[in-house]
């Protein structure tokens, strides 16, 4: 890896009461690349994101973003780091007493000095990108769960962030919509070149988007590999995950290909 890591988790541990959730997580996120975190429900994927966002402090270990330890910096420095973030929460966390339009416009209004006209242009563009025209004046309670996700995505991308965090961006979307979202990710990332950290259950589709895949199991990142390596990994835990999520057929196809290559 020649690119430098923008985010590093070093031996991060976190327990709630007697429940040990993270048991020494090590993870490096490479600049400009997409890292996908996968793993079973309740394993602590969202919790890892919350550590990186500085919302939760680890019991021990370090979380470094741009080389700075989040638990050792001042509130102002943390805020400066967060200026680079675009975040989609698992539950979208929209401001429920604001319309869809105002939700997406809020970061622009609070963080920039753009005129309302300019804000309108950008917001309309982002809403169109997420296929949300016509819902501008609805409130979060009046739109569907999948639409809320897309509003959250529009809000996360509205300031052209350097690092994006998406917690299950396509959960609750139909296949066509989630494919469209993946296309949007691909397009925006190739334009903006942001670093992406995505938590997803959408294996194998998400692997097409991923540069690196990390599997969280039993409070430890088993390994962080490229999608190809991931699918062929010898690690028994990863092997089992790949088999259960993609089916034995998927792996055996590749193995057959390998076999064929070997034959020649």
């Amino acid at each position, binding site marked *: 890896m020649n690119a430098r890591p923008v985010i590093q988790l070093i031996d991060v541990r976190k327990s709630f009461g007697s429940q040990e959730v993270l048991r020494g997580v090590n993870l490096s996120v490479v600049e400009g690349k997409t890292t996908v975190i996968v793993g079973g429900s309740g394993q602590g994927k969202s919790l890892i994101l*919350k550590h990186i966002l500085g919302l939760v402090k680890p019991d021990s270990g370090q979380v470094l973003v741009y080389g700075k330890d989040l638990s050792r910096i001042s509130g102002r420095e943390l805020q400066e780091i*967060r200026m680079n973030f675009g975040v989609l*929460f698992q539950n979208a966390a*929209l*401001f*429920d007493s604001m319309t869809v339009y105002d939700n997406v416009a*809020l970061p622009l209004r609070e963080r920039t000095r753009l005129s309302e006209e300019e804000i309108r242009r950008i917001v309309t563009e982002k809403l169109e990108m997420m296929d949300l025209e016509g819902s501008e004046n609805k409130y979060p309670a009046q739109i569907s769960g999948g639409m809320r996700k897309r509003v959250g995505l529009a809000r996360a991308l509205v300031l052209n962030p350097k690092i994006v965090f998406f917690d299950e961006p396509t959960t609750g979307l139909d296949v066509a919509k989630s494919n469209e979202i993946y296309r949007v990710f691909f397009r925006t990332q190739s334009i903006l070149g942001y670093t992406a950290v995505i938590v997803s259950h959408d294996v194998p589709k998400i692997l097409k988007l991923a540069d690196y895949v990390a599997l969280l199991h039993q409070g430890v990142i088993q390994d962080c590999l490229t999608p190809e390596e991931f699918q062929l990994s010898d690690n028994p835990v990863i092997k089992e995950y790949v088999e259960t999520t993609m089916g034995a057929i998927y792996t055996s196809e590749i193995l057959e290909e390998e076999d064929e290559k070997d034959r020649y």
Partner: protein
Amino acid sequence: MLRLFEAIGGFFLYNVNQLGRLGIFLFVSLVSIFKPPYKVSPVIKQIYVIGSLSIFVILFTGAFTGMVLGLQGYNTLKKFGSEGLLGSAVALSLIRELGPVLAALMVTGRAGSAICAEIGIMRISEQIDALECMAIDPHKYIMAPKFLAAVISMPLLTAIFDVIGIFGGYAIGVGLLGANEGAFFSSMYKDVEFDDIYMGLVKSLVFGLLIVWICSAKGYFVHLERGGGFGAEGVSRVTTTAVVLSSVAILVFDYFLTSVLI
């Protein structure tokens, strides 16, 4: 036995902790008021929510408080043959004491509970986390306009309460019971001094701060509540506590402010 000590220790630790939290919360919020950018429209919106929407209840309670003062005052003063002092008795008790305290209690019930519930819901639905992750300071964005609005609205609401109360006292004392109209107003002009107005003003400012401070901080820290602050029930519980705590704080501070200012 050991468990008893543990419980007592836990209780004190929790409360010392909470006090520290609340103190830092107040400090950070007040400092954030002075940080740019300065936006007027959120403050006006909060003045509407905290101030304008409370006017009706203030008018109503103010009128009845004044009326009962007129009634009680007239009958008591009559025993001493000094009905002529009714005007100053009604005005002084309203301006120095009842106006600020009752107006503050009314605002606690109306706006304080609303503030606490609003912020509590924002906390449990991760909206505050979302703000923080967007590098928007929740203190600046949510709390600062509320503090400013309270400091602006409370004295005005108190003034409305006082004026309506004095007219209520006038209506009952002079209109119904037949006290002398001239004496009512002249005693009032003579006895009410700037110090009295000043005391009322200081009290209303402090109470305004107290209400917003306690109610918004309680909502803001709902997730850290002892015994778990979860979901709708957590918010409802913390709202009740916030209203009770603000009311108690208002009465306690009233005593100390009076003893300092008198």
